[in-house]
């Protein structure tokens, strides 16, 4: 096939991008070369629209060993242990084939983590679906959950937490973000930077097939009516092979054979080889006839662009080929020496004894396009005016029951019971807590992790929303007693070519950066997913934050269930009664406008750190951050988890009972303490200038509000747990 402008456009390249390729090469590329350029220069691999803005994120900190730029971020958790973690999206494939799309998403992120030498110890997922009434939602949800479980369970890695939301903006573009944490010794971390000349480059894992060719460009395309034609780009996952690959790689990593290692993810052999060469400032040479292929007569183009799963590329020390082969043979995996490193600084491909590609690496990486896309600043929406009458006919207990059964609040047990969350024998906090917690095997330490996003807030005001999610992640870690360390992020947005969507991106990233800098909660890895868009309509901006924190002694982990009757319940943090964009406003008052709650970073940090102090001194019996649905919703969840009730009173503020109990002001926690500790606790809070309200006490089995309104915990449990199960089994 001869290459011309139209062929380039069919590959998703722009006219001027094609011109730039010809200029850089000083000739017209052949089809294989064009395929390589299109894969490397698409949004997914090149970050051409996002790079400029991501540069401003804080990525350093005293515990950061490796920030963005590698397969995953790495943080120090003491005693020579390090945690490797990252989140990644698999949105487009999951919409087309929910089971396989989600499964391969989980497989891909685990590979990113074990490529660095870390054994995965926990998985998390953040999944977002269209309106429950939309005809596709149920099947997509079922398929995605089954796929996430199918892959993670088979690998034997516990899924310890997640997040699930429904919003009509995802009707045509669901989101599936998967996160993995791995554990590694600090001196055994592996990187993807090639080094040395004439080193053998080996291919291991599964064979290469025709699946997923151009998956990366699909991830960078808008869905349109022709979506059916894009279908064959979906890959099928093979978790069993991945499990073998994990064990084989870790076995090889025990020795000193590996110079560099890189998984073949998006754009397969192309991006993995080019990244290794680029980082090492080297060239790389392959004989493509050596690549293990599943199908007969695969062309160089297909081999280079295949996105078959469960494959790795390794640069070995000379003379280690036999040793490596023995290990991969033992695990029944394909192994082939397919090329070597060179000093040409080019990627040179041979097939059937002729050269089929010859491209300077620089042209693919350093010279890849970078855009300063136009973007539109968003204004802070005006506050909504709620009239007194709107509250008049509302009964607080009815409202609470309704909110507890809201699809975005209700229990997600139906989902996480399908995930093996206890395998590996170290799960301290299973799904259903503020963060998942896993013990570091054989030690007293534990790590906590949480995934969060707040699309509604980000949509209402991206800058505040961006800050808010980082804070929410921070709070979720603190609530289990963990010292927050670092975050990873998955930025799910519409098209960067649309000024409004691009504006949402820019401002969310700005907010995110500001908060993570202030909280000393740096970004160590991440991923951008643009074009979550059908025709002209983008999803609500959905940056997802994966936060990781450390618990020194797992025995001190805090859970949210109320523990003992007559203990005192305290709200930490100030309540102003912010209802705009709250679940209450949206779901009960049907009011979708207004600004999201404000973020005060000083209070956020101060409140969080003070809570940690109280936890350290053993005063906190249970804790939960206040998020969607406000104080009463959070307290109801604590009641449900602990199977205890609470007798509470609204403090004498000027705001009304609905504003107080359902307002979504930020930076707040609910804690339970013993009566005898009350004085000590309030002293600490006062000394640190932390606002608090004494809310009430724990009782046996009823939630009693202002002596007037009552509801039994059994009823709350019903409201909270039934919705999803009923929905799925209907």
């Amino acid at each position, binding site marked *: 096939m001869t290459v011309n402008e139209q062929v380039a456009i069919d590959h998703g390249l722009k006219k001027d991008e094609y011109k730039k390729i010809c200029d850089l090469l000083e000739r017209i590329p052949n089809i294989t070369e064009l395929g390589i350029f299109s894969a490397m220069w698409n949004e997914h691999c090149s970050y051409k629209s996002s790079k400029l803005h991501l540069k401003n994120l804080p990525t350093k900190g005293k515990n950061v060993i490796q920030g963005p730029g590698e397969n995953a971020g790495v943080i120090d958790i003491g005693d020579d242990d390090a945690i490797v973690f990252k989140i990644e999206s698999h949105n487009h494939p999951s919409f087309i084939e929910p089971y396989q799309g989600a499964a391969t998403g989980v497989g891909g992120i685990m590979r990113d983590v074990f490529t660095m030498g870390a054994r995965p110890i926990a998985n998390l997922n953040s999944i977002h679906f269209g309106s429950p009434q939309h005809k596709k939602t149920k099947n997509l949800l079922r398929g995605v959950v*089954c796929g996430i*479980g*199918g892959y993670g*369970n*088979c*690998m*034997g890695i516990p899924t310890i937490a997640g997040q699930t939301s429904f919003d009509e903006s995802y009707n045509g573009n669901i989101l599936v973000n998967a996160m993995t944490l791995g554990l590694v010794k600090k001196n055994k971390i592996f990187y993807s930077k090639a080094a040395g000349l004439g080193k053998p480059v080996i291919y291991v894992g599964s064979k290469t097939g025709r699946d997923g060719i151009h998956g990366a460009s699909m991830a960078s395309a808008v869905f349109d009516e022709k979506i059916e034609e894009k279908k064959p780009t979906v890959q099928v996952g*093979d*978790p*069993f*092979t991945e*499990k*073998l690959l994990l064990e084989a790689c870790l076995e090889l990593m025990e020795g000193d054979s590996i110079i560099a290692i890189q998984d073949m993810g998006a754009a397969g052999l192309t991006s993995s080889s080019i990244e290794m060469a680029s980082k090492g400032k080297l060239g790389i040479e392959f004989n493509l006839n050596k690549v293990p292929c599943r199908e007969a007569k695969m062309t160089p183009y297909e081999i280079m662009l295949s996105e078959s799963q469960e494959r790795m590329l390794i640069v070995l020390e000379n003379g280690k080929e036999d040793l490596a082969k023995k290990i991969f043979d033992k*695990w*029944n995996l394909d192994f082939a020496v397919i090329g070597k490193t060179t000093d040409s600084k080019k990627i040179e491909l041979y097939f059937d004894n002729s050269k089929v590609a010859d491209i300077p690496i620089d042209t693919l990486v350093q010279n890849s396009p970078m855009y300063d896309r136009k973007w539109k600043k968003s204004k802070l929406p005006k506050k909504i005016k709620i009239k007194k009458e709107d509250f008049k006919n509302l009964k607080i207990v009815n409202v609470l029951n309704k909110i507890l059964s809201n699809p975005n609040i209700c229990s997600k047990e139906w989902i*996480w*019971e*399908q*995930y*093996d*969350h*206890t*395998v*590996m*024998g*170290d*799960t*301290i906090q*299973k799904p259903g807590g503020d963060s998942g917690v896993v*013990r570091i095997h054989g030690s007293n330490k534990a790590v906590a992790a949480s995934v969060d996003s707040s699309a509604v807030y980000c949509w209402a005001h991206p800058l505040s929303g961006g800050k808010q999610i980082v804070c929410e992640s921070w709070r979720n870690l603190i609530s289990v007693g963990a010292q927050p360390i670092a975050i990873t992020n998955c930025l799910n947005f519409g098209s960067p070519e649309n000024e409004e969507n691009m504006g949402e991106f820019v401002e969310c990233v700005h907010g995110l950066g500001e908060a993570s800098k202030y909280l000393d909660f740096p970004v160590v890895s991440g991923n951008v997913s643009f074009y979550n868009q059908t025709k002209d309509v983008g999803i609500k901006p959905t940056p997802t934050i994966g936060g990781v924190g450390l618990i020194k002694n*797992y*025995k001190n*982990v805090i859970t949210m269930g109320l523990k003992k009757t007559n203990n005192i319940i305290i709200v930490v943090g100030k309540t102003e009664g912010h209802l705009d964009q709250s679940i209450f406003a949206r779901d009960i008052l049907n009011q979708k406008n207004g600004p999201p709650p404000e973020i005060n970073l000083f209070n956020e940090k101060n409140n969080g750190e003070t809570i940690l102090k109280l936890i350290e001194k053993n005063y906190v019996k249970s804790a939960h951050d206040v998020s969607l649905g406000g104080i009463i919703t959070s307290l109801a969840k604590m009641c449900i988890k602990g199977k205890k009730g609470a007798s509470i009173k609204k403090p004498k503020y000027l705001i009304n009972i609905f504003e107080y109990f359902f307002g979504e002001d930020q930076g707040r926690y609910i804690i339970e303490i013993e009566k005898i500790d009350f004085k000590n606790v309030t002293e600490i809070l006062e000394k640190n200038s932390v606002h608090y309200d004494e809310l009430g006490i724990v009782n046996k089995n009823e939630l009693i509000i202002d002596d007037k309104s009552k509801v039994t915990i059994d009823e709350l449990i019903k409201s909270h747990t039934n919705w999803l199960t009923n929905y799925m089994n209907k």
Partner: protein
Amino acid sequence: MNSSVITFPGSNCDRDMDVALKKFGFKNKMVWHNDIELPKSDLVVLPGGFSYGDYLRCGSMASKSKIMKSVINFAKSGGKVMGICNGFQILVETGLLPGVLLRNKYLEFICKNVFVKINNKDNSYFKNIKKDTLELHIAHNEGNYFCSNEQIKEINDNNQIALYYSDKDGKVSEDNNPNGSIKNIASVFNKEKNVLGMMPHPERMIDPALSGEDGSIFFKNLINNLK
């Protein structure tokens, strides 16, 4: 007491089982599926996981692996063999245990704590356990125990049913059947009671900080019975 845990490609509870056995005093060895000989053992354990990806039928391909010949001989000569979850599935595929394990009734993987009622304590696995019900943990996709009517009569007559899914007071009813198993069966023996297969994972219940502690009762008791 010496124990052996067999690792098949795709096993993923082998380490958990190793940790549990050692915690309660077993000298445990890990044995690779391609090995031919079993080390000297008082107990052989086939752990949970997804041997061969659970492809074809769970346990079917593992049941054909090299080491299984020795395991079968060991069992036939009276050796204690215990299969947990995927291990149970492997044991039924070898024919050492009766019945089969089908997909869970609602076709969903289930991971949660359950209660089981001990049906037969006259054997080395459950002898001397004081409680009548235990809280254990299940995590499986294919735990729906099934066998023909004649077979169910036979295993009943031979007292081969080890555990039923029940409520915490030992009441066995459809309400506490997590996966559709016939008669709520969670675990069975062979005729001689030296081979045990069970879907629940006692090794996940050995720490109060985790899911619970009734697995500790099981293991403590097991090593004492084997002495």
